């Protein structure tokens, strides 16, 4: 005999169970359409394995488990998949989620299935995977995939297997009637579970308000060693943690699982489903659901196909919609309200409760909390709900966590008992969500900060590098200048150096452009082609400077030798290197000069390499240039189009204002148009030739983007001028408003930026007036 323990707190709400126990379980029948959410369990949603239009058979898998904590979905009857789309699902939010919709064909044709005749002969893992493939998830309400519970505890020895037949919520009788009518199947399922986890004891806990169920289960469990334990009725004894405490006296550690204390807990409905899956090969496609409440003329229990719309069940139960202002899925303590009767019954739906207004009246406004402590009296986990209520209202998250908010099981006993009708549980739910959100925000803020700092560091580093380079160049220029003072044609050389460094600097001034140019070059795969003259010039220059450097170096060497300096060796290598370079340059220059004849002395390996590279480049050049040309022309077209648009705008304005220049503008427009046409023709001519190698235009993402941009532009060109102008004005207005708001804020706070904002606002306003005038002109023109 098991010693029964009491749990802290608890309440005794009116049970209201008799109404739905008058009749035996009745099959609800096959509705015309079934809606099967892909997520009827805790964990990752299942992934559809059928497509729209497929015919499916009863029991056929239509969505497979995705990941470890997940469960597949099966077709509850034969029919056709008509849609896979978001539908409203049973969830307190009333939101939609992906569902598979099946139109039933009424034949209820089973897919080929077969049970395991002797499960003891089968490998345990096979058995667990059978349960997993049958899509069984906790049927008590939480919907945790059963196979996960069974396969998780290999490392933790399980002493006790508990089957939960408590059903402590008022109104619900689905488990009660299942135990009365199918006790044998439940016990058979329990035997399978025992075989799988080999516990030392197996307990089935049932509240003492179900004497018939207890008797039926005792009879079925005769001689199996499974103990049926009945204990006093009290809500919420049926909570997993509470039941464990009642039956074993153990407490599941906060944040832990029952397996941490050597216990596995399953609902009796789950046990029955496991029996059906193992012994008959039937996946979970139906369940027993109570339809009750005084707004139902004939409350009773149904064997319902999963996916059956709630409306279909209510129709069978003589539902009187005018009396009912809230429809609840689950019980009156922990169930959630439905806004739509089209939502389907899912694996966790144990009850549809349709109460009348008198039965469950809408909550009156909450009175002040007087800290009477009735909530703390009834709390099954010994929290202090009244304190948590104050902290929740004051957003004191630290205090809430200190008071173990996250141990709250949301059973609703505190709200039930609260004399001031305060919706305490709703406060806790909101606060839990707030705290989770705050934690996520914190993590995100940390990451944003890291990224921001990394970016700052990078920008600084780049700036420092640039500065260093600039300094180095400055030094070089100075050195050269100093050198030039010594040299012959000082003035010229200084000038040249300054010009060079300036050129370089101005090149640097716009790093973005330089980068773009570089990137373009890299993309095109070829360096910008030097013309022959350019190269010759460059080489000649190089030759001259190298000669000079050589002379200087030799001079230094001589000096060093004279002074018997330590650096002699270094100078000597320098001289050698410089002379080598000189020779190479000379050779290259010669080669270049003589290359008109095609013959080049190839003794020098460097020269040979250069020659090879050149050859390669020239070999590739024609094709590349073709591509380049296309791009160039495309770009030209784009810019011309832009110009054309601008010109047209101007023309329109000029016309509207009766400007003298209108004629000139008109000519400009025509000319631009002509040019554009010419360019397009050119492009068309090129395209076929370029298309042959590897359709480079499409290959190039940039070109694609350009093409898309062009398309968008063409589209906007399709818009009438007026539409364009209106759009422009709208966006300008939005920006003006935004800036004005910012300006106000800045002025109020005496910000330094106020002035800048003010000027930019003025500018924007000018722009806006101009745009508005243009629009007005356009309108006039149209009229």
């Amino acid at each position, binding site marked *: 005999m098991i010693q029964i323990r009491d749990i802290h707190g608890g309440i005794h709400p009116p049970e209201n169970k008799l109404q739905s126990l008058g009749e035996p379980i009745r099959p609800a029948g096959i509705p015309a359409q079934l809606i099967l959410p892909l997520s009827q369990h805790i964990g990752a949603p299942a992934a559809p394995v059928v497509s729209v239009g497929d015919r499916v058979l009863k029991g056929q898998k239509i969505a497979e488990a995705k990941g470890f904590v997940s469960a597949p979905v099966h077709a509850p009857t034969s029919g056709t998949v008509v849609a896979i789309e978001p539908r409203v699902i049973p969830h307190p939010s009333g939101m939609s989620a992906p569902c598979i919709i099946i139109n039933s064909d009424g034949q209820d044709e089973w897919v080929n299935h077969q049970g395991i005749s002797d499960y003891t002969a089968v490998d345990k893992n096979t058995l667990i995977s059978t349960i997993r493939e049958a899509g069984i998830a906790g049927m008590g309400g939480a919907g945790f995939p059963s196979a996960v519970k069974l396969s998780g505890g290999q490392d933790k020895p399980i002493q006790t297997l508990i089957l939960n037949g408590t059903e402590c919520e008022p109104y619900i009788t689905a488990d009660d009637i299942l135990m009365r009518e199918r006790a044998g199947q439940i016990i058979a399922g329990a035997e399978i579970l025992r075989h799988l986890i080999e516990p030392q004891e197996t307990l089935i806990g049932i509240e003492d308000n179900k004497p018939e169920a207890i008797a039926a289960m005792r009879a079925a469990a005769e001689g199996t060693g499974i103990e049926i334990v009945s204990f006093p009725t009290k809500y919420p004894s049926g909570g997993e943690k509470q039941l464990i405490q009642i039956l074993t006296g153990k407490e599941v550690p906060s944040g832990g699982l029952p397996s941490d204390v050597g216990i596995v807990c399953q609902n009796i409905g789950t046990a029955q489903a496991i029996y059906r899956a193992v012994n008959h090969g039937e996946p979970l496609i139906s369940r027993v659901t109570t339809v009750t409440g005084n707004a139902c003329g004939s409350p009773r229990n149904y064997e319902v196909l999963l996916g059956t719309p709630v409306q279909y069940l209510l129709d069978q139960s003589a539902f009187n919609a005018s009396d*009912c202002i809230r429809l609840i899925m689950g019980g009156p303590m922990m169930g959630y309200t439905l806004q739509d009767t089209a939502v389907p019954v899912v694996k966790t739906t144990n009850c549809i409760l349709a109460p009348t207004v008198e039965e469950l009246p809408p909550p009156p406004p909450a009175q002040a909390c007087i800290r009477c402590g009735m909530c703390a009296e009834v709390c099954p986990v010994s929290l202090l709900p009244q304190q948590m209520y104050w902290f929740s209202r004051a957003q004191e998250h630290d205090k809430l966590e200190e008071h173990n908010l996250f141990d709250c099981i949301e059973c609703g006993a505190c709200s039930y008992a609260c004399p001031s009708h305060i919706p305490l549980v709703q406060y806790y739910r909101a606060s839990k969500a707030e705290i989770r959100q705050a934690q996520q925000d914190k993590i995100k803020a940390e990451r944003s900060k890291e990224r921001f700092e990394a970016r700052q560091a990078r920008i600084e580093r780049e700036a420092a590098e640039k500065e260093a380079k600039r300094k180095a160049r400055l030094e070089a220029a100075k050195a050269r200048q100093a050198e030039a003072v010594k040299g012959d044609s000082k003035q010229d050389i200084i000038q040249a150096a300054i010009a060079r460094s300036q050129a370089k600097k101005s090149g640097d001034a716009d790093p973005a452009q330089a980068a773009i140019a570089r990137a373009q070059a890299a993309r095109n795969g070829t360096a910008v082609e030097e013309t022959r003259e350019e190269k010759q010039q460059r080489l000649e220059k190089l030759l001259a400077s190298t000669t000079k450097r050589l002379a200087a170096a030799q001079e230094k060497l001589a000096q060093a030798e004279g002074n018997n300096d330590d650096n002699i060796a270094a100078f000597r290598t320098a001289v050698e290197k410089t002379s080598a370079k000189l020779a190479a340059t000379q050779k290259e220059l010669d080669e270049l000069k003589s290359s008109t004849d095609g013959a080049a002395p190839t003794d020098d390996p460097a020269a040979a390499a250069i020659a090879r590279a050149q050859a390669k480049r020239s070999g590739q050049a024609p094709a590349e240039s073709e591509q380049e040309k296309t791009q160039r022309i495309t770009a030209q077209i784009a810019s011309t189009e832009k110009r054309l648009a601008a010109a047209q705008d101007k023309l329109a304005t000029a016309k509207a204002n009766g400007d003298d220049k209108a004629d000139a503008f008109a000519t400009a427009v025509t000319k631009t148009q002509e040019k554009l046409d010419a360019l397009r023709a050119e492009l068309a001519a090129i395209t076929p030739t370029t298309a042959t190698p590897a359709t480079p235009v499409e290959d190039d993402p940039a070109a694609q983007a350009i093409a898309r941009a062009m398309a968008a532009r063409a589209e906007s060109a399709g818009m009438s001028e007026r539409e364009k102008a209106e759009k422009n004005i709208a966006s300008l207005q939005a920006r003006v408003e935004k800036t004005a708001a910012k300006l106000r804020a800045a002025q109020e706070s005496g910000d330094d930026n106020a002035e800048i904002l003010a000027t930019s606002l003025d500018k924007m306003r000018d722009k806006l007036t101009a745009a508005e005038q243009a629009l007005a002109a356009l309108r006039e023109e149209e009229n």
Partner: protein
Amino acid sequence: MAFLKLSSPHAHGPMSTPRVMRLVLLATLPGIVSLTWFFGFGTLVNILWASLFALAFEALALKLRRRPLAFYLSDCSALVTAFLLAIALPPAAPVWLIAVGIGFAILICKHMYGGMGYNPFNPAMAAYVLLLISFPVDMTNWLAPRGAISVAELPGPIDALLRSLGAASTQFDAVTMATPLDLLKQNDALLLDDLWAQSPQFGQFAGLGWEWANVGFLLGGLYLLYRRVFTWHAPVSMLASLTVIAALFYDGGSSASGGSPLFHLLSGATMFGAFFIVTDPVTSAVSNRGRVFYGAVIGILVYTIRSWGNYPDAVAFAVLLMNFAAPFIDHYTQPRTYGHKPRQNREKS
């Protein structure tokens, strides 16, 4: 068809705050009846005035705070404050005294702190202490009980009303006497038995009339316990600690003795305090363990102040002192939540 979207639970228990308040009012009846029987209609007049002022001040405060009037007035919390203060005041107290007390209780002690549920101090007791310190003469003017004086000397309804208004009645000349707790405090020469014999104010176990008033409040308190309006923890631990400490210091009745445990249990505001003041949920500790501690310290404080302090009775002071300590007690008596280790272990680990 539109259904409500509500967070669970959808069912609600039968208890409501106005009902709790009405039960408390109902439970004061036995005590009020015995007070009236022994001291005349003064208490009833007190209650009448206090209720009128309480409703008026409550309405004023709600109006100023722009709160819905009918909704908050109907919770009866102002009436409870009025009853408690009216019972604690000397019967047929001057009307201005009641007005000042109720005004302080409702406006300052309750609404200045944010209204019902937010007040850190029991409004009735805070007001009582204010009056006791500010107007000691008026506050110690207890009428003599039936038995010590003739029935004709007890104030009738009209007499009490006139007296409260400060007008002298032609037929009635109020007789005031020191209370038994006063006598005991001032006694330093007589053995208790002699004191008992000499003073007409003493009855069977404690003060004449007082003992029955205390029994009346005990009955009311037991009724509230039966109706589960509050838990037994605070009142029982207060009475228990008072009994224990009184027994410890009771030497059988010498002149220095503080009175028997039974005397203390049935004297002054002991039972009234235990079941109607200490159980005030707003200002007491929240957990059951905390309430046991809270009640026990109040019991000790009551005896300490009665025996060695300056005032003859001490429930109001003891309660206010412990109101201060309630948050502190809460901090250390947070119950162990399911699945958590005991607190000490948790702090160590």
